[in-house]
């Protein structure tokens, strides 16, 4: 042993320069580290005696950071070894920290920390939406996917650009200009249409004929349309022609959307993109073999937007969900919303809260069925709604220039502007307005107007003042096009398209003149962008731009009030959704389909409710400025009826998410035990403590585990119920190499074993093989269950610091007690998201300062956001 230590010291001394040899680490490492981490022992693959201090080397730097962190946290030396005196530990970590910061700062002296990056797809779409006041234009689906680095897509490391991107940007710009520019002198006629769910071509009529729905009048079966029984209705076309579905009857539906049923209100297929008012009247009932009775409670229906594709029969799955709406028992309730609809989009419907039942192939069909139904009296759709014409999108481009009819005979030297023919897919009964001829923007002084219009547009699009030279280059493009015979509109389109495809628009750029000045502060306009792309995922509005231009934006009071304004604006929901989508991986909510035999109660309504809970909860934490312990534990949850039933919490009625106080012993509330997180961290069939533990360590505690060593197969949980995952992991953990990491990440995962793959609380594993008969519990009586109850769940564990917990509630208490750690991680996640780069070693002190200031001011999450925006870290490149 002595010989080994002597050799190690010799190697160490040889390996160090003279100045380094004087460092205090030698004695410390020799006394406390080399026994396990010298050339002979080399535990964990680390030979500290040979590890030179070559911090300019990235790998070397990372290794020393790890050494620093292990000593600082007390993880090393291991607990079983004698503890080094605190002063020695402090000295060596101080020295290491200073060395690392110095090295990092030296290396980054000439670098810009946050690289120039392009907009993400979501940022691009939102920027266009806000620039042109077209709040629902769909663009990001046609752009190539973004990469991700350090947990988020807002990072230059991940946002490359290729010829594919550029081609798509050109297409997108053309699409935007097609929609933005007015081509008729009057706004399209507002059409109002009342549509029955059994509308022609909309699938539902067919299932009603066969007993999966009924027609109702005055909340009783329609006397002219008997429900299908032993006989079904024949010949759908004959019923449509004779008007069975056009007599004002209400449609009562028992069947859920499935592979062969997609209920649509297909009689409106959008021709003119824009805002539409949608109203519907819903109620629920209990169907009892031909009788309409009060329902079991308030049911929920889903309205969605469906994009028709191909020949108009496509679509199937909703493009996006408009919302879930209550259908109270025997009481028609009207719901109204205004939404943007794109070309060939229509409204879809689903009986969201009903179990998937089908009567069409059962004896007696509807007349033998007893169960819940959702009734749709009608759906009204009105639009497109324009409060001004030409629309604002047009005015952004052409101001108040008049629209005139283009008469080729009068302008023989000018090419007429091109117009795209709009093709309406599907069976829409709304019709385009008769053409009023070819209309276009006219200008008496094209170049003067071009200069004026571009002087107004370019700064808005580029999010900063634009030099005269740049503007003139765009005007020159217009001039060039006019000279070759383009109309004024077409010539201006060239300039606008070029602007929308230029780096000034596509990239978030800082003013070059300010780089390197004022300790790397971003210029005022870039700072305005940093704020707006953080909270709105979009361009700054006029007020932010004005404040940036006047140089007042950084004034602490102004910055604080602007941060508040941005957070209170409805556009901040984009931040909630985008940040949570990445931080807590909510974007992956649908990446697994729970096994239908094991989890038959899972459906899209439950999944959407899960996501809604997490978003609403985060919004509540910010709005009420709750502290970071709420990330893992809370006395309230944000629930609707669907989730409340899933969680076993009584007294919640309806589809809307609201704040619900939790019983004292309820583990729900924090992110840790929300069904969305529990689903994301499972594979759809089984749970494993390993990915769940890794998620908690990485996303909530800010201590990402080491990646698994190569060639180690994943543990496959046993769904037959013979062996629990804990038993399998115990075997795995007997390997010392595995044990060191698993000791950290398994305990949180063990605690979360109390929840199944869809976030249901469990005391026994579900099994599709061996086991006892399972009670139905809160599962809808119309859902068949075939799973069994397997081995009991053990949710106890021991943390690395040897604190033990017997269940998930105790685990929550242990984790919540360290709210500083939770807050620090959240600060880091916010910072990475906000400034578009990873947090480096030298950023730790600024982060610590943000956390300390937050704690000094109550520790709330809204306070943390303010501290971040006020910080040097946020305001510098």
């Amino acid at each position, binding site marked *: 042993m002595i010989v080994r230590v002597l050799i190690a010291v010799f190697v160490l001394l040889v390996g160090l320069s003279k100045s380094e040899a004087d460092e205090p680490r030698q004695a410390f490492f020799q006394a406390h580290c080399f026994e396990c981490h010298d050339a002979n022992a080399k535990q964990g693959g680390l030979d500290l005696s040979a590890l030179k201090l070559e911090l300019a080397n990235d790998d070397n730097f990372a290794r020393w950071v790890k050494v620093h962190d292990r000593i600082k946290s007390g993880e090393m030396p291991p607990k079983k070894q004698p503890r080094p005196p605190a002063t020695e530990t402090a000295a060596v970590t101080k020295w290491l920290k200073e060395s690392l910061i110095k090295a990092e700062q030296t290396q980054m002296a000439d670098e810009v920390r946050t690289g120039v990056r392009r907009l993400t797809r979501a940022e691009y779409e939102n920027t266009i939406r806000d620039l042109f006041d077209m709040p629902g234009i769909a663009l990001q689906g046609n752009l190539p996917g973004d990469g991700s680095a350090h947990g988020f897509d807002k990072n230059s490391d991940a946002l490359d650009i290729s010829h594919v991107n550029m081609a798509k940007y050109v297409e997108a710009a053309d699409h935007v200009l097609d929609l933005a520019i007015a081509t008729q002198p009057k706004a399209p006629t507002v059409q109002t249409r009342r549509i029955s769910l059994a509308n022609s071509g909309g699938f539902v009529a067919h299932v009603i004929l066969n007993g999966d729905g009924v027609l109702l009048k005055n909340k009783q079966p329609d006397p*002219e349309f008997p429900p299908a029984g032993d006989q*079904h*209705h*024949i*010949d759908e076309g*004959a019923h449509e022609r*004779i008007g*069975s579905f056009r007599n004002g009857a209400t449609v009562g539906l028992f069947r859920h959307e499935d592979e062969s049923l997609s209920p649509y209100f297909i009689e409106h297929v959008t021709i003119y993109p824009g805002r539409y008012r949608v109203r519907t009247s819903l109620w629920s009932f209990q169907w009892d073999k031909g009788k309409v009775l009060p329902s079991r409670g308030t049911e929920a229906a889903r309205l969605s937007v469906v994009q028709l594709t191909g020949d108009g029969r496509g679509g199937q799955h909703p493009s996006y969900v408009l919302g879930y709406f209550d259908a109270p028992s025997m009481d028609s309730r009207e719901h109204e919303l205004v939404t943007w609809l794109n070309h060939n989009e229509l409204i879809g419907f689903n009986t969201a809260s009903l179990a998937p039942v089908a009567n069409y192939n059962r004896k007696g069909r509807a007349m033998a069925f007893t169960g819940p139904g959702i009734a749709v009296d009608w759906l009204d759709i009105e639009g497109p709604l324009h409060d001004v014409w030409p629309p604002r999108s047009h005015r952004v481009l052409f101001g108040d220039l008049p629209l005139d009819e283009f008469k080729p005979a009068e302008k023989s030297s000018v090419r007429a502007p091109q117009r795209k023919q709009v093709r309406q897919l599907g069976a829409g009964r709304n019709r385009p307005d008769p053409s009023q001829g070819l209309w276009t923007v006219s200008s008496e002084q094209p170049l003067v107007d071009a200069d004026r219009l571009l002087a107004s547009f370019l700064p808005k699009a580029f999010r900063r003042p634009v030099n005269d030279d740049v503007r003139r280059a765009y005007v020159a493009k217009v001039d060039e096009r006019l000279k070759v015979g383009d109309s004024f509109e077409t010539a201006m389109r060239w300039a606008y398209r070029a602007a929308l495809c230029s780096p000034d628009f596509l990239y978030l750029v800082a003013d070059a003149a300010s780089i390197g000045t004022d300790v790397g502060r971003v210029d005022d306009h870039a700072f305005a962008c940093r704020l707006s792309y953080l909270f709105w995922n979009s361009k700054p509005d006029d007020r932010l731009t004005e404040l940036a231009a006047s140089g007042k934006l950084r004034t602490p009071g102004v910055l604080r009030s602007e941060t508040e304004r941005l957070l209170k604006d409805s556009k901040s929901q984009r931040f909630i959704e985008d940040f949570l989508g990445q931080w807590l991986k909510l974007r992956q909510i649908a990446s697994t389909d729970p096994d239908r035999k094991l989890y038959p109660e899972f459906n899209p309504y439950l999944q959407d409710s899960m996501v809604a809970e997490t978003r609403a909860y985060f919004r509540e934490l910010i709005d009420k400025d709750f502290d970071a312990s709420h990330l893992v534990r809370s006395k309230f949850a944000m629930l609707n009826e669907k989730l409340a039933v899933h969680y076993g919490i009584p007294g919640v009625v309806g589809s809307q998410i609201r704040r619900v106080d939790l019983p004292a012993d309820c583990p729900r509330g924090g992110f840790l035990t929300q069904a969305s997180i529990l689903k994301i961290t499972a594979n759809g069939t089984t749970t494993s403590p390993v990915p769940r533990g890794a998620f908690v360590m990485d996303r909530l505690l800010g201590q990402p585990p080491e990646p698994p060593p190569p060639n180690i197969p994943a543990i496959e949980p046993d769904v037959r119920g013979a062996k629990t995952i804990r038993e399998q992991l115990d075997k795995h953990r007997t390997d010392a190499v595995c044990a060191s990491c698993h000791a950290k990440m398994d305990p949180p995962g063990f605690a979360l074993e109390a929840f199944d793959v869809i976030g249901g609380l469990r005391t026994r594993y579900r099994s599709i093989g061996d086991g006892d008969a399972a009670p139905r519990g809160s599962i809808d009586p119309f859902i068949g269950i075939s799973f069994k109850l397997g081995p009991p769940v053990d949710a106890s564990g021991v943390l690395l610091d040897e604190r033990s917990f017997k269940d998930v509630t105790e685990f929550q208490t242990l984790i919540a007690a360290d709210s500083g750690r939770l807050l620090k991680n959240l600060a880091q996640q916010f910072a990475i998201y906000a400034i578009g780069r990873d947090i480096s070693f030298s950023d730790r002190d600024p982060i610590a300062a943000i956390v300390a200031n937050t704690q000094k001011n109550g520790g709330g999450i809204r306070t943390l956001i303010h501290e971040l925006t006020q910080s040097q870290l946020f305001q510098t490149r």
Partner: protein
Amino acid sequence: MKNRNRNNLSRVVRWLVVLILSLAAWRTANAAEPIKHQITGLFSTDREADLRATFKELPEFKLVSIDFKNAEASFEYDPAKVFPNAKPEQIVERFENVLRQASRHTFGIKPLRSLPKDKLTLIEIPVVGLDCKGCCLGAYDAIYKLPGVEMATASFKEGRVTALVNPEKIDRVELETALKQRGVQLKTE
């Protein structure tokens, strides 16, 4: 010379007046005379009300009477006015198009039967199904256009489909086959 021209002119005028008055009288006489057609889609007595409702939307035609037993109806209309430029043999076809359009293809017109009723056979087929106008239309549609079918009715309430047929062209088996193909359940099944 001047007088001769004047006499000629007055003769032409008189002749024109007579011609115009004759034409007007002929047209009035024709317009007033009801025109009878066979009606398709009149498969049950409650369809009479539907037919009347349909013609309320067609003011250029006056529905004078309905003969359900023979699936016929009488109308007053001016063919020259409602179907300008149509040849006489095209009138029924044009009327059929108008009526089908107005009734969403549930009623139609066809020429009156050429065979006397005593040469036709009434076939009655017992059926089971829902008391629903749409289903009846479906059953009726299955058979009324078959060659040899002169007239048909369908009523699931009464549980029967009837067809007045030319027995030389069609028989019961063909009718039953057509009904079954449409999804109609025969009572014997």
